[in-house]
């Protein structure tokens, strides 16, 4: 392939940035090959407590109703969990469902697609509803890779310990065991579907470190890892003739009079038409919450990441676990403003780029866990005043030109082509100049609480992927999320389809919606918003809309 040519635009960097770049360039030769010290357990603890957004009390609210009453969650999430149901005033007729299936999957990302394939393999009639298109999901945007302990110097035990320590020892053991033990098979399954993993000529998987890994077990498909996996899974779902109802959101779960999950109320995103689906099992695979912009952070997440599944599950009585722990990815785009919050894959650091401050000093080992790295970047900017000024705030350099110096010319183009292309569109060549980053809202570590069969405390209600909590404890490692959506997407599909023959549905009902509203009323909670949110609203500072968008107005 011809070398990727970039027209660098004059004036993309400010004079202050240019001055700082000179310092970065001056220290670069001495930094290449230098071993950067790892922090002690005490140092990590300290920086997390003082600078990680999860420790900012004013960002959280205590829930006043529902299964997790008395626990704190991000305030924006609390507003939705305690929001008003979209069917409260006008209940649809549940007697004549528009769709009738065995397994209803809500969400068309990596977990939903994996679940659908295994559900069909298990012999169940299966349907996917998704509020956008199938594949419109955070899975599509996962750039860095997927972990699996398949090298001779590695084992599921070492993978277990890495993820457990990374999760601050809060991971549910039965979930984490499954994640690491089924990881190699997940890779084999994807490989067998035709996913193009990076391999050497002899077939050895090319694997690298991620933050917090003690072995190089990050498998990748260039920096399109999630996109490559998602487009293959989507293709497979279509090949198998699985019914996909797109541009249709689930707005409430339907239970039966025995308390079992029995389907969902659906809303056409374009026409507003309400429909109902009857199902013997429901799998929530709705992903994360980045578009709620907790604490005003920008996000790397997909447009549809609004925590819908958490709202549906919670209102029906399903418990949340670790909903107060959010992952801020250390390296979101801080500049240019057009890409604010977009993900700069951790693979950039895996490939050798260091985090460097305004003076050209590499202030930390770039492969600490994500929470520690994000907190350290915030400290470098806020406490030590060593950030690089940008129009939006101060930021840190990610010294990308190091990558080609370490790995040889062409490494960036081959290993992180997506990043190279993204910056090139804004006149920047990351092979020649470093890039500016700052933490971005990236991942919901917690979610709905599930067993190792992916089922919640509500019979017939399953959850998979980012919407489920527990597997990653209170902090997820890079590459364990793509793994999670595959392992637990498949797991949910298998157990949901196996559950179907056992269940006999009673009369469908939405009485749980009224019961929850009564609980809110008794607690004196006045809902600020209808929920689930479905999509965020942006107006980019247009003063004409300042009064019309009251909630989900997330201009930063």
């Amino acid at each position: 392939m011809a070398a990727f040519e970039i027209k660098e635009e004059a004036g993309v960097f400010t004079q202050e940035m240019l001055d700082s770049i000179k310092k970065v360039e001056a220290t670069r030769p001495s930094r290449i090959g230098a071993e950067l010290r790892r922090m002690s357990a005490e140092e990590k603890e300290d920086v997390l407590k003082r600078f990680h957004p999860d420790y900012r009390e004013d960002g959280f609210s205590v829930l006043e109703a529902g299964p997790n009453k008395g626990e704190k969650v991000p305030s924006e999430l609390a507003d939705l969990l305690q929001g008003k149901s979209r069917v409260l005033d006008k209940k649809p007729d549940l007697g004549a469902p528009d769709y009738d299936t065995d397994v209803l999957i809500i969400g068309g990302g990596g977990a939903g697609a994996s679940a659908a394939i295994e559900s069909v393999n298990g012999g169940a009639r299966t349907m996917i509803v998704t509020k956008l298109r199938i594949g419109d999901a955070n899975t599509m945007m996962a750039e860095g890779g997927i972990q699996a302990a398949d090298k001779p110097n590695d084992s599921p035990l070492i993978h277990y310990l890495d993820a457990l320590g990374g999760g601050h020892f809060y991971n549910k053991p039965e979930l984490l065991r499954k994640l690491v033990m089924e990881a190699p098979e997940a890779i084999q399954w994807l490989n067998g579907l035709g996913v193009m993993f990076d391999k050497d000529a002899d077939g050895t998987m090319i694997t690298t470190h991620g933050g917090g890994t003690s072995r190089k077990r990050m498998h990748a498909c260039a920096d399109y890892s999630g996109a490559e996996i998602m487009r293959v899974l989507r293709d497979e779902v279509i090949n198998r003739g699985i019914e996909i109802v797109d541009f249709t959101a689930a707005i409430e779960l339907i239970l039966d009079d025995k308390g079992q999950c029995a389907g969902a109320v659906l809303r056409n995103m374009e026409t507003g038409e309400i429909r109902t689906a009857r199902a013997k099992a429901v799998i929530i695979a709705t992903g994360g919450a980045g578009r709620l912009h907790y604490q005003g952070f920008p996000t790397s997440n997909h447009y549809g990441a609004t925590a819908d599944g958490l709202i549906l599950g919670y209102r029906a009585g399903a418990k949340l676990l670790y909903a107060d722990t959010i992952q801020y990815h250390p390296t979101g785009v801080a500049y240019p403003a057009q890409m604010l919050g977009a993900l700069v894959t951790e693979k950039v650091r895996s490939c050798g780029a260091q985090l460097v401050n305004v003076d050209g000093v590499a202030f930390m080992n770039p492969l600490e866990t994500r929470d520690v790295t994000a907190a350290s970047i915030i400290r470098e900017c806020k406490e030590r005043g060593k950030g690089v000024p940008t129009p939006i705030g101060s930021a840190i350099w990610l010294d990308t030109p190091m990558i080609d110096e370490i790995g040889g010319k062409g490494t960036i183009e081959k290993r992180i082509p997506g990043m190279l292309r993204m910056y090139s569109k804004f006149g920047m060549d990351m092979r020649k100049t470093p890039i500016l980053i700052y933490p971005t809202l990236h991942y919901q570590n917690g979610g709905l609480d599930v067993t190792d069969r992916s089922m919640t405390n509500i019979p017939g209600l399953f959850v998979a992927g980012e919407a489920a909590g527990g597997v990653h404890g209170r902090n997820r490692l890079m590459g364990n999320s793509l793994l999670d959506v595959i392992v637990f997407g498949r797991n949910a599909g298998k157990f949901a389809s196996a559950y179907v023959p056992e269940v006999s549905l009673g009369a469908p009902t939405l009485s749980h919606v009224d019961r929850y509203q009564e609980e809110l009323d008794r607690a004196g909670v006045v809902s600020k918003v209808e929920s689930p949110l479905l999509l965020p609203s942006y107006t980019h500072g247009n003063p004409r809309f300042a009064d019309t968008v009251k909630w989900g107005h997330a201009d930063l």
Partner: protein
Amino acid sequence: MEKMVNIYIAGKQYTVPDGLTIMNAMEYAGYKHIRGCGCRAGFCGACATIYRIKGDTELKFCLACQTKVQENMYIASLPFFPTQKKTYDIGETKPSQTVMMELYPEIYSCIGCNACTKACPQGLPVMQYIAYAQRGEYAKCAEVSFDCIACGMCSARCPAGITHPMVSLLARRLYGKYIAPESGHLDKRVDEILNGDYDALIMELSEKPADELREMYNHREIEK
């Protein structure tokens, strides 16, 4: 006061701040996207957009989330295009010379106009990868097409009705499954796990007291 520019969304004029992406400019103008918006980071292909600068004869193709607005930009979103995807069983479909003829015979009607390549917002040599597919050179087709995000603008421009993203997806799946070298270490590890080699060990590890696990984690050896 920030600099403003005039743009035309589906022909209607709006004044928006210079420097916004097309996607953000539409939101500034008051649109709330349902279609035509996805990852907002250049990976999902939802926001395929065609534009023309007033007075210019050339049509341009881009992703709305990755492209800044310009003065006098006439913008048309292309959130959907009726492409054709054939279904197949990947287990039964082999990387033979004839598979493209069977599933996507229209690729042999390519007239070589290269409109597909000119329409690609990823800068991929689209017509070239179709030529590889015609010749059954799936490894080359897979490599060259790898960064395809399936926005479909190539197909929208094709006079032969070719659905390029689906053709290259098939080539990539054939390559990944049948042509890429097999990973012996992966198959070996899967066999060990299925054989139960780690069952007792993982239970033993996960049931250790928290303090011991903490010690093990803090002193674990890290591969260089």
